[in-house]
C-alpha cells in the first residue's frame, strides 16, 4: 500500500529517520554484526588476544553434550509452555466468551498477570514450592507426592513451566478472546438451528476458524519460552539442579558472563538468531498462507 499524496523535501525525511537509524545502527546492527564476527573468533578469558578460528566455535558446540542437552531442555520446556498455555487460555477464553454476566470482570481478573515481571513470577512460584514452608509443596507432600526442585530435575522443570504458563495465560487469553469475538454469529446460529450441540459447534466451526490465531500464538509462545523466560529460570532454579533447567538463553548468559567464554557464547547467540529468524519466516510465509479459511 502506498500513499498517493506525498510531500517533497530533500533533507526533511532524512532528519526524521535519523534518530531511529542512529539507535538501530549503534545498538542493533553493530552488536548483531559483532555477534557473528565473535562467533568465529577465539578469545582468552582476559580479552588479551583473539584469533580467527572459523567454524571451530560451532563445532565445539556441536560436540559439547551439555549444549545438546540444553537444546533438548529448551525443546521440552517451550513445547510444554506453548501447549499448556494455549490450552488453558483457550478454555478460559471460550468460557469468558459464553458468559454474559460478569464477562468484563472476569476479563480484567484474567489479564493482569501480563503486567507481572517474569522475575516476580519466578519468585512467587518459587515461594509456593519452597521447602518446608511452601504451601503447595506441603500440600503435595500431604498427598504423598514428594517435592524437591533442588534435587529433582523434573520438579525443577515443572516449576519453571508452571511459572511461565501462569505469566503467559493472559496474553494467549486476550488473543483468543479477540479471535472468538470475530467469529460471525450467523454461522453459529445456522449450526444451532441445524441441531449441532455446543461441543460439535466448537470443534467443527469455532476451532477451525481460530486456527490462524492458534498458529500465531504457537509461534509467539515458543519465542516467549525461548527468550522472555530467562528471568523466571534465573529466579526460580538458576538453571539447576545441575544443568537440568538450563535453557539456551540461560546458557548464553552463563557461558558469556559467568564462564567468560565469549566466542562460545557468541556462537550460541548466532544459533539463537538463526532460530528466531526461522520462526519468524515460518510465521510470515507458512502460517499466513496455509492456515486461512
Amino acid at each position: 500500500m502506498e500513499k498517493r499524496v506525498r510531500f517533497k523535501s530533500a533533507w526533511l525525511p532524512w532528519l526524521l529517520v535519523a534518530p531511529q537509524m542512529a539507535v538501530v545502527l549503534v545498538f542493533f546492527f553493530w552488536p548483531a554484526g559483532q555477534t557473528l564476527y565473535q562467533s568465529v573468533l577465539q578469545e582468552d578469558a582476559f580479552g588479551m588476544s583473539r584469533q580467527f578460528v572459523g567454524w571451530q566455535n560451532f563445532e565445539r558446540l556441536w560436540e559439547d553434550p551439555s549444549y545438546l542437552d540444553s537444546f533438548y531442555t529448551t525443546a521440552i520446556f517451550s513445547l510444554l509452555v506453548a501447549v499448556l498455555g494455549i490450552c488453558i487460555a483457550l478454555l478460559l477464553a471460550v468460557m469468558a466468551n459464553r458468559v454474559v454476566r460478569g464477562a468484563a470482570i472476569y476479563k480484567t481478573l484474567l489479564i493482569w498477570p501480563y503486567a507481572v515481571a517474569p522475575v516476580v513470577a519466578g519468585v512467587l512460584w518459587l515461594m509456593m514450592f519452597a521447602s518446608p514452608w511452601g504451601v503447595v509443596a506441603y500440600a503435595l507432600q500431604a498427598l504423598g507426592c514428594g517435592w524437591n526442585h533442588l534435587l529433582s530435575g523434573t520438579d525443577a522443570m515443572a516449576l519453571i513451566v508452571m511459572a511461565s504458563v501462569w505469566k503467559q495465560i493472559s496474553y494467549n487469553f486476550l488473543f483468543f478472546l479477540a479471535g472468538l469475538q470475530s467469529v460471525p454469529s450467523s454461522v453459529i446460529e445456522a449450526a444451532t438451528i441445524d441441531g449441532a450441540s455446543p461441543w460439535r459447534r466448537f470443534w467443527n466451526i469455532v476451532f477451525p476458524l481460530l486456527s490462524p490465531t492458534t498458529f500465531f500464538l504457537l509461534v509467539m509462545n515458543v519465542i516467549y519460552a525461548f527468550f522472555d523466560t530467562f528471568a523466571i529460570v534465573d529466579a526460580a532454579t538458576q538453571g539447576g539442579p545441575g544443568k537440568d533447567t538450563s535453557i539456551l538463553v540461560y546458557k548464553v548468559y552463563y557461558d558469556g558472563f559467568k564462564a567468560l567464554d565469549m566466542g562460545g557464547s557468541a556462537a550460541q547467540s548466532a544459533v539463537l538468531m538463526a532460530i528466531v529468524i526461522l520462526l519468524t519466516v515460518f510465521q510470515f510465509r507458512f502460517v499466513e498462507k496455509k492456515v486461512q479459511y
Partner: protein
Amino acid sequence: MIERRPVLDFVSHAVLIIGVAIIAFPVYVAFVASTQTAAQITGSNPLSLVPGNNIVSSYTLALMGGKVAAGGTIPPGWPMLWISFVVAMVIALGKIAISIISAFAIVYFRFPFRGLVFWMIFITLMLPVEVRIGPTYQVVADLGLINTYAGLTVPLIASATATFLFRQFFLTVPDELAEAARIDGAGPMRFFMDILLPLSKTTMAALFVIQFIYGWNQYLWPLIATTSEDMYPIVLGIKRAIFGEIYVEWNVVMATAILAMIPPAIVVILMQKWFVKGLVDTEK
C-alpha cells in the same frame, strides 16, 4: 445468546472462577507472606494463609530499608522503584517519539534508499535483545554508558514495533487530509503537528501501555548493564534480596515483589482498553 443452556452457563462460571482463583493464588500467598515476620515464615510448616500483623513493618523495611533482627541490612526500595519508573517512562516515550517521526518520513515522503531504511528497521523486529546480549554490552561499555539511564534505556529503544504500528495507522489516514493541507499551503511539519499527531492519540496511548510494561519488567539487560547497586531497578532488587543474603527476609522480599507489581498492574487495569488494543495491534 443463541440458546439457553443453564448447565453450561454454570460450568462456564465455575471454570472462570477456578481460573481466576488459580491466577490470583500466588499473589495472595505473596501478600500473606508480606504481612508476617521473617521468623514466622521460615518457622512455619506450611505457611499460614491468614494475613499476619507485621504488614507495616514489612513494607516500611521494603521501602525505606534498615537493619533487621537477623543482623543483615536491607537496602531501601524506593530509589529502585524510581529508577524502574524513569527507565519505563524513557523507554515508552522515547520509542514513541523516535518511531512516530520515522514512520511519518517513510509513509509521507519519497527519498533515495527509502526501501533500504524500511528494511533495516523491519529486521530489528526479528531479534530480541537477548540474542545479541554480549556485543551490546561491549558497545554500551565502550560508550561509557554502564550504570547510566542512557545505558539502561537506549539499547531497548532500538526496536521497530512502534514504527510499524504507526506506519500501519498512517496508511489508513485518508489521503484527502494531506491533499487538503497541501492546498491550504501547510508544509509537512505543519500537517504532522496539526493533523497527524492529534489523530494518533489512541495509537500512542496503546503503545505507551505496552512499552511501559516492557520497560518496567526488563531483567536481563539491567542485570548486565548495571554493576552498581545504586542503579538497580526494582526487579533486580528482588533478586539481590533472595540470592545476595545468607538469611532471606522473605517478608521483605514479598513486600518488594508486591510493590514491584503494583505500578504496571495499575497501568494495565486503568488503561485496559488501550492495553488490549496495543497488544493485539502490535503483534498482528
